[in-house]
């Protein structure tokens, strides 16, 4: 009943879901940062890569395993992000988007350049944690445990972030400060500190995606540069600044890409950009964007 081609279809769907997980985690971070800082964070891909390298160093230099890296790498990259925000991005507050984009683009080139200088362009291996090796035979396909974990864990993190922003008091501060930071500050909230923490959280999500990706895609200095272009297309399609929009769009486009790989492989690298162009023509604010 399940022939080779259905197996191939499900395999591509799974690849799509995995990619979708990374798109969702990265575009979610971009959306949170854009909402609060009004900055299009081009350094996001580079910091995703730094997250993966963090996991690599933690394991190979300090002997700290994957599970601890899953917590430590986002914290370390988050701290790096907060330092960047305090020393550089903060100076751009109130200026046009373009300045933040140029600054973070420059930062991305510097960070990637440094890593390339020391590690070249080839990938460093990162082993799948022992508890997640192997897989399940589902009859219609073979599901590697680690890949299932990545999808489930990413989805959980995305939904928890959505909940925290849309349903909690802290999230209410964040939403309000996104709309009118001056007034929220005049109510007694330390908005500059909130902005710094938000940037740290957003790039922390990128680093988390980097750690998740390390056992699948290897650890490479340009791993973020390749991914981030697609992620920006995802963000444009979903609508800048929409939380649920970036999650849904991330997973949906990952799946769509996987399906395209199966039905019409020649278009699989361009399908996301074709959709971006169509969305921009019909709904320039994105599918979930507020006008």
């Amino acid at each position, binding site marked *: 009943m399940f022939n080779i081609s259905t197996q191939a279809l499900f395999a591509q769907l799974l690849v799509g879901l995995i990619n979708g997980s990374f798109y969702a985690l990265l575009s979610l971070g971009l959306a949170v940062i854009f909402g609060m800082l009004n900055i299009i964070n081009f350094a996001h891909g580079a910091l995703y890569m730094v997250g993966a390298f963090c996991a690599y160093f933690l394991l190979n230099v300090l002997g700290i395993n994957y599970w601890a890296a899953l917590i430590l790498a986002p914290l370390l990259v988050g701290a790096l992000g907060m330092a960047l925000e305090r020393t550089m991005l903060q100076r751009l507050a109130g200026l046009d988007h373009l300045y933040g984009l140029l600054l973070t683009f420059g930062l991305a080139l510097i960070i990637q350049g440094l890593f390339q200088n020391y590690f070249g362009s080839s990938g460093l291996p990162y082993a799948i944690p022992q508890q997640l090796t192997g897989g399940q035979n589902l009859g219609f396909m073979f599901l590697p445990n680690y890949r299932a974990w990545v999808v489930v864990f990413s989805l959980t993190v995305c939904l928890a972030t959505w909940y925290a922003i849309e349903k909690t*008091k802290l999230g*209410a*501060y964040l*939403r*309000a400060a*996104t*709309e*009118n930071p*001056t*007034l*929220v*500050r*005049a*109510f*007694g*909230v*330390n*908005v500059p500190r909130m902005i710094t923490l938000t940037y740290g959280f957003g790039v922390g999500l990128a680093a988390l995606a980097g750690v998740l990706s390390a056992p699948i895609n290897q650890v490479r200095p340009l791993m973020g540069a390749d991914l981030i272009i697609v992620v920006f297309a995802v963000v444009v399609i979903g609508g800048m600044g929409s939380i649920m929009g970036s999650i849904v769009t991330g997973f949906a486009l990952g799946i769509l890409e996987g399906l395209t790989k199966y039905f019409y492989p020649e278009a699989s690298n361009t399908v996301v950009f074709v959709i971006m162009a169509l969305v921009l023509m019909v709904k320039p604010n994105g599918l979930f964007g507020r006008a």
Partner: protein
Amino acid sequence: MDEARALLEVKGLQAWYGESHILHGVDFSVREGEVVTLLGRNGAGKTTTLKSVMGMIGKRTGSVLYEGRETIGLTSDRIAHLGLAICPEERGIFASLNVLENLMLPPQVRPGGLPVEQIFELFPNLKERITSQGTKLSGGEQQMLAIGRILRTGARLLMLDEPTEGLAPVIIQQIGHTIARLKQQGFTILLVEQNFRFASTVADRFYVMEHGRVIDAFANADLSANMDKLHDYLGV
């Protein structure tokens, strides 16, 4: 005036919006428990005065004493924690928050704020609509929400910027009653109003502003004696 009892004392306050110099040395004071109104034509600097006292303007110089403490060098979040709160002219209701979230947003800065039940008692409309999106409320309800949310925080000096603007007479009356009740409860209120008739029903004293300065002051009791002058100032 008894200087020792001034809750807010503003001296030589100057303020800038970017390059443009808006306030050119504003002097006035508000005593504890008073309702004081700033009057003046459009562009006289009334709103800028409130925002400057709150620290919401980029550049300000001069002196703003609250409870005898200099605040001119403080950021607005620090000033809020001293016990000042603002209800801005554009009301500042957040579209991405529902009514309850809007109401609960400003953090408690001092003990002694009104309990939420008492705010709902002042503004029963709000209670019926707690799950509505903040900006889906009518103009009057949004105004009630904007005032209500700063009553919770323990702030003692409330700065209300044109709370009656664009509202129906019956709602203006409700806001008038609210201000009277808040005064009874010991709140101090600094009001900016274009609606002079409304202001005359609630205020103890008036300051008149023109070109970024205070040019005159009188008490409510001397209102009728100053009517001609006032018509001149306000061009009504």
